[in-house]
């Protein structure tokens, strides 16, 4: 098992290198280039060439990539062209908001999706199953933007149950410990601050959770149906095991294998969905940073955010692989 973990960790390195190369190459290939974006109205061909020379952009691409890699490895991601602050500082400040939102959404999707998918499969063809299938179809099809505004208009503006935007009410702002608003409130025993943070979190988290929830429900349902028809479940039943044992040990454990892969894949989509959700609910996380970086052509920031996204994606899928190895003994040998 330890060897498996080490080997998988080693495999992550080339993947990350490749992704960094892609990010690098893609940004270099954008029309205009960083220099003209930076200079904006003041851009003249001479000034652009001058800046390119200063920034090292006139060097061969491979040399540029080598330097870029060297700086990244020492934690130097450059300075935002919008705010003039180090990109890493900006990201550090915005990260907790996005992590909080994504984790909440993922928890909703997983904790609701797996039981729902299981129930739908075990009552196949019943009213619950059919309404679940229809629900997931709608869930996947509704644009995040639209759903976000809809929820906001109804539950926040119309009914007033939830705050329409932001992470915390100013008056209730919890003392900053970790940057995670809900957690901070708990840690400092400012219960009302925690509760306020949860209320703020609810609508964005539901918005962001919808698509992964729908996907997890569907894949769980399909996987459970598949496993329920398998020979070893027939064996389990032929042993007269209690229904709970058959369900848990024999059906669910095997059915979760494909589900865990899909959860890993969903994290990538979650990051994309976070950008839209944060926009709707004025959340002020990485999504906001990214949106601004794109519209204002802030290349250093864009570059850092894309790399961060790639890193998270690779690490999450590494975790998925490890969980796979824990559930499925056959994986460890290969």
């Amino acid at each position, binding site marked *: 098992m330890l060897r498996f973990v080490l080997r998988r960790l080693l495999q992550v390195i080339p993947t990350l290198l490749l992704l960094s190369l892609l990010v690098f190459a893609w940004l270099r290939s954008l029309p205009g280039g960083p220099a003209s974006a930076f200079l904006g109205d003041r851009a003249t061909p001479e000034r652009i060439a001058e800046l390119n020379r200063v920034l090292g952009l006139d060097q061969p691409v491979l040399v540029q990539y080598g330097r870029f890699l060297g700086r990244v490895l020492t934690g130097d991601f450059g300075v935002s062209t919008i705010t003039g602050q180090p990109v890493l500082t900006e990201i550090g400040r915005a990260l907790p908001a996005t992590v909080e939102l994504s984790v909440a959404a993922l928890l909703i999707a997983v904790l609701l999706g797996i039981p729902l998918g299981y129930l739908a499969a075990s009552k196949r063809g019943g009213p619950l199953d059919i309404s679940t299938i229809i629900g997931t179809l709608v869930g996947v099809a509704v644009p995040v933007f639209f759903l976000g505004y809809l929820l906001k208009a109804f539950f926040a503006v119309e009914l007033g149950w939830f705050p329409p935007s932001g992470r915390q009410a100013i008056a209730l702002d919890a003392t900053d410990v970790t940057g995670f608003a809900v957690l901070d409130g708990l840690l400092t025993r400012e219960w009302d601050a925690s509760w306020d943070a949860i209320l703020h979190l609810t609508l964005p988290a539901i918005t962001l959770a919808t698509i992964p929830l729908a996907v997890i429900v569907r894949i769980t349902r399909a996987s459970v149906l598949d496993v329920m028809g398998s020979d070893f479940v027939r064996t389990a039943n*032929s042993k*007269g*095991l209690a229904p709970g044992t058959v369900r848990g040990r024999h059906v669910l454990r095997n059915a979760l294998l494909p589900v865990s892969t899909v959860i890993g894949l969903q994290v990538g989509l979650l990051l994309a969905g976070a950008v839209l959700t944060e926009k709707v609910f004025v959340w002020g996380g990485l999504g906001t940073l990214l949106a601004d970086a794109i519209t204002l052509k802030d290349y250093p920031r864009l570059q850092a955010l894309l790399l961060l996204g790639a890193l998270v994606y690779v690490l999450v899928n590494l975790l998925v692989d490890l969980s796979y190895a824990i559930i*499925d*003994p056959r994986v460890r040998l290969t």
Partner: protein
Amino acid sequence: MTAPRPTPTAEPLLQVRDLRVAFRRRGEPDTLAVDGVSFDVAPGQVVGLVGESGCGKSVTSMAIMRLLPRRGVQITGSVKMDGEELLTLSEAKMRERRGRDLSMVFQDPLSSLNPVVPIGLQITEVLRRHRGMDKEKARQAAVDLLDRVGIPDPRRRVTAYPHQLSGGMRQRVMIAIALACRPRLLIADEPTTALDVTIQAQILELLKEMVAETGAALIMITHDLGVVAGLCETVNVLYGGRIVERAQRHRLFGTPRHPYTHGLLRSIPRLDAAAGEQLEAIPGSVVDNLPWAHACAFQPRCPRSVDRCVEVTPEAENTGGRLLRCFNPVPASAE
């Protein structure tokens, strides 16, 4: 503990009467997979259920175990164990009996074992369920069982996963699981079909030993008359969901009366066959079957068919301890 061999006059352990299983699909006519099967199994008896692919062997055994899905399947008739009707038993009661009073070994030992659960746990779970053993006791019992079915180094192997064992070993594990609670009836559905020929013989030998040792009755399901020859006391020959002939093993092999049984016997290769003697396959296949409702299903493939075979259903008649469903059987002196 070796149970004494019961006398043949004992009350039947299992009594199957007029068992019918129909698969119904919307927009399609029902498939009668089992079409009125009746047979008895005495305590400790080894009974064979023989027939070619698709004749309803597996469906019969699954119906007895009540393992068929409820949706789209209609089961009628009667299956009694110790005089108690199994077909109408509540699901909870049936679960108590399965694994404890009757159990099953399946054809493919790889797919029949859970790939992500250690084999030890797959044995102990049945012991803990039916015998109420605690963890440690069940583990010890599992080691003993693995040892008994011939798994080398059982103490280490309890933590192995199915993919770490060979096919033969896996089937040994299946047998250990099925016999863990010493059921009085074991149904083995083609337990050797997925294995190498040399391993087949070992597994059959083990099954034979184990049922003798635990006193369990055995229903041996196979398409291979060679398997039956070394094992079964009584043999039922199944065709198109009905039993067409039943006799004691040596009588069936010595003087097969039904043309289908006759054909089956001539189609198996024998070491003692005279040189130049031809193997004869039965012509056609099950797709040629007629419905039993007003004919003999075997008629289109039968070399001895007469006019009545396509007009009237041949009834099963019992003469001198042999059950036969044929208008024009092979004469008793033919072999």
